[in-house]
């Protein structure tokens, strides 16, 4: 500080008095900063010391990895029987799809997952990606259905396991997303007819559980169809899942639209951009990146919700697991089976969650100041 009338002098910057980087300062700051923090740290360490060793003993040390039923039974649950996975993984992963033909869902699903991964990469967001999607979806269904190129026909009732889960969620989200954007825009439309329609749709669908939607798609819908006309139950369920997720997504997208300052639209309008140009070039790019975490939240929810299709007799990953555990020899080891399926779900959901954080950072280039 300078006294009145004194000449200003610049103070050069210097290092802080206490070291703030390195392991020890980090430990002190984060784990042992005060009494309560220290107590908390010790408590967590004690809990880990109590429960980790037995868990390790069960899951790894005593566990039987071979699909050896006698050895598993001999364990008396003192160790995990991972053999159930070795024995039943084909049934869990592919459901009732004909055993000899299971390479087809394998290839189809691998293609779909590869394309999903490729679609995550922003430089690939070009026109050709849409074309590639159409091709891959066509290949997917040719492989799954068969009945052409010398492949035997497999009816949808026998589809199951991971391919079904991936298909229901991917197609569900790919169709739900554009629909949700339209509905969200519609709810803010100046035209009362469109607005009412969109509000009705969202509120009706959100007002009932997914189970009800699936039941209606599977049992009620056929009653209203003209005689002799049938639509495959899988397609009906797929549409049900799409419509259901779209209602939730629409509200998420609307949240993003609300958050956008009015001036953005006015600036675009004052430049002569039409409604759709404004929406496409100014509104959506900003509104959607605001709600990336919430969108991913809904995506993950939908992915897991597909497991509800078991109630209308479709055997997705969880349904196929129930089929596998129908074998009385292995029924006792349901926990290991559940953990295996849970691990598959976790890997997918965790990947989605990490991707959400990554894409958020990459999309935010313009909205951060640095």
């Amino acid at each position, binding site marked *: 500080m300078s006294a009145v009338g004194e000449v200003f002098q610049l103070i050069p910057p210097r290092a802080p008095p206490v070291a703030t980087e390195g392991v020890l300062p980090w430990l002190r700051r984060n784990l042992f900063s005060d009494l309560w923090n220290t107590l908390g740290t010790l408590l967590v360490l004690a809990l880990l010391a109590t429960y980790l060793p037995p868990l390790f003993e069960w899951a790894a040390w005593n566990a039987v990895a071979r699909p050896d039923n006698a050895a598993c039974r001999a364990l008396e649950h003192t160790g995990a029987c991972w053999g159930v996975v070795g024995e039943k993984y084909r049934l869990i992963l592919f459901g009732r799809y004909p055993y000899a033909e299971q390479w087809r869902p394998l290839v189809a699903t691998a293609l779909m997952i590869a394309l999903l991964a490729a679609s995550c990469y922003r430089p690939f967001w070009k026109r050709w990606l849409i074309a590639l999607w159409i091709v891959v979806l066509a290949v997917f269904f040719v492989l799954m259905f068969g009945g052409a190129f010398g492949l035997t026909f497999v009816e949808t009732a026998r589809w199951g396991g991971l391919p079904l889960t991936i298909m229901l969620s991917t197609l569900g989200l790919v169709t739900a997303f554009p629909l949700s954007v339209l509905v969200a825009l519609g709810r803010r439309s100046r035209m009362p007819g469109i607005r009412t329609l969109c509000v009705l749709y969202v509120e009706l669908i959100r007002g009932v559980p997914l189970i009800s939607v699936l039941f209606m798609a599977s049992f009620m819908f056929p009653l209203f169809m003209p005689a002799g006309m049938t639509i495959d139950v899988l397609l009906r369920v797929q549409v049900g899942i799409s419509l259901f997720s779209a209602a939730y997504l629409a509200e998420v997208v609307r949240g993003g639209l609300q958050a956008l300052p009015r001036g953005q639209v006015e600036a675009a*309008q*004052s*430049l*002569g951009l039409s409604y759709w140009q404004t929406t496409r070039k100014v509104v959506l790019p900003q509104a959607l990146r605001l709600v990336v975490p919430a969108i991913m939240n809904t995506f993950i929810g939908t992915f897991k919700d597909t497991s509800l299709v078991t109630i209308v007799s479709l055997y997705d990953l969880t349904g196929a697991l129930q089929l596998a555990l129908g074998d009385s020899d292995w029924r006792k080891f349901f926990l290991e089976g559940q953990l295996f399926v849970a691990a598959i779900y976790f890997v997918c959901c965790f990947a989605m969650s990490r991707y959400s954080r990554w894409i958020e950072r990459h999309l935010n280039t313009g909205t951060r100041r640095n």
Partner: protein
Amino acid sequence: MQTATPIIEFAHVNKWYGQFHVLRDIDLSVARGERIVICGPSGSGKSTLIRCINRLEEHQEGVLRVDGVELTDDLKAIEAIRRQVGMVFQQFNLFPHLTVLENLTLAPMWVGRIPKREADERAMQQLVRVKIAEQAAKYPLQLSGGQQQRVAIARALCLTPKIMLFDEPTSALDPEMIKEVLDVMIELANQGITMLCVTHEMGFARSVADRVIFMDQGQIVEQNTPAEFFGNPKSERTRDFLSKILAH
């Protein structure tokens, strides 16, 4: 200055926000190339007045013609007029997800259907004009307020409009940055574009405006040349307003 056909013509224009009568019987005609400064207390309808010109606000009564076209619900006509009218906002309203250059090329490419290369070239010319060409690759939020506002002016100029509207362009700026924006606006004014500017920068009004309009409670209270307006205000209301804003 006054030529045969005015480029903007308000005839008995009225507008309400709900029950609030915001524009009352506005009659105003603006000649080609005329530079008008509009001032008045907040809530007097001056922003609403210029926002009616590019139909960001709709008037409910009366006739408003811009460049010979009457503003109605006809969307195509409105979009055509908006191409002739550039607007600069108090809050800049740059598109934060686009770079400075992309902010400038968006409308020429999508509205003007100009190829990207040519749009880039024109945009760079405008950026040179507002002395900010070196920032073309940055994002708006990386710039200072004064720089952002100059980009906003360049963006509005990219479609070579006949009319420029300024809605309190320096009100959101730090004092140090006001001058750089006013300098750009003065240069623009000297090039003969029709200009309507809502501002309280009375120095700017004095040196640039052909006419100063004072609004209060949705009406045009007084309009005159800057010399007359500041030197010899006719109404009590104007004198009162001027004494407040010129006091500091």
